[in-house]
């Protein structure tokens, strides 16, 4: 069942151009929800050893909020947004039009607001990617988790770990005004979708 991907420069470039369009659109959706513009960096496409994944956002025991959904259809991928806890609180206050500092706990209402962020951002991302590829992609409902970073990222480890010891990760972060990171934004394409992309390239 091992799906080997030849990770060449061409694939990296293709992924970078596809996801950049998607991320532009995702940030537009997210900014619209917030009512002010977010900044973001160019996406980094890289292959990361599975064992490194839990260390990548502030250490495995750090408490954070994770918003997770899948892209399904002609291009399958996982999308994960990881927010430092205090940023998640601020975001909920903004979305619920409350003074900053009101939210100190993420209950079901607050989680549902964060889920909406996932919905919006994910859908905007997928629409742009679907347009670029000329294919159909649908988002699953989002899952919102508040837990240790390591435990949240175990989802990615568990879903990709059976296939490979490495994960192909497209990583960027959305920044709020100054330089502070509002959320990490990860896209992890399924191995089969990467293979399909590569084959399409060869034919072209």
């Amino acid at each position: 069942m091992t799906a080997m991907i030849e990770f060449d420069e061409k694939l990296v470039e293709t992924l970078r151009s596809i996801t950049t369009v998607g991320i532009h659109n995702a940030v537009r959706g997210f900014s619209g929800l917030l009512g002010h513009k977010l900044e973001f960096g160019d996406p980094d496409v890289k292959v990361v050893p599975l064992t490194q994944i839990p260390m990548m956002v502030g250490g495995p025991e750090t408490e954070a909020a994770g918003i997770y959904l899948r892209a399904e259809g002609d291009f399958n991928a996982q999308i994960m947004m990881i927010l430092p806890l205090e940023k998640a609180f601020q975001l909920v206050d903004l979305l619920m039009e409350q003074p900053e500092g009101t939210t100190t706990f993420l209950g079901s209402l607050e989680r549902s607001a964060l889920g909406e962020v996932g919905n919006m951002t994910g859908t905007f991302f997928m629409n742009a990617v679907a347009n670029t590829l000329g294919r159909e992609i649908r988002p699953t409902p989002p899952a919102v988790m508040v837990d240790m970073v390591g435990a949240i990222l175990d989802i990615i480890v568990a879903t990709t770990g059976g296939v490979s010891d490495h994960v192909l990760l497209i990583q960027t972060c959305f920044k709020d005004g100054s330089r502070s990171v509002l959320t990490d934004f990860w896209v992890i394409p399924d191995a089969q979708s990467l293979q399909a992309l590569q084959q399409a390239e060869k034919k072209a």
Partner: protein
Amino acid sequence: MKDPISVNLGEVVVSSDPADVLVAYGLGSCLGITMVDKQRHICGLLHAVLPHRMNGAHPHCAKYVDSGIEGLLEAMLKAGAERRNLIVRIAGGANMLTAAGLSKTFDVGTRNIESAHETLNRLNLPLHAEETGGHSGRTVRVYVASGRVTVRVVGGVEKDL
């Protein structure tokens, strides 16, 4: 005081140094398996990711619950532990995804717990205690000096397992 030894994904660590504390941070669906020989002061911790060993993986590969437990047992015995002294505990195996349509597909946590029970049964090793399942991540610590094993969830305090 020494820094705790972080036992990362797919790793197993066995120690007889009383100054050591072994830690598996932020276990979600992953499973932490501990073995303690109190008489000989030898402790081990495994951080396994998936339930069953894949074809081609090493028979003691610590990435998988089944082969990892065999590897941990072997490493404990090699370090001088006695099989009949071994106190085995497991923690982790949460299902992190509770959203409709997502959770069933990936319930690796539950399968990890099942695999641990099967493997321990097969090896005739009694399970002393477990804190598994649910929807929360856990950090597992093993204090080599006392043989104490603790579990902590987010926002909680360390509790003995």
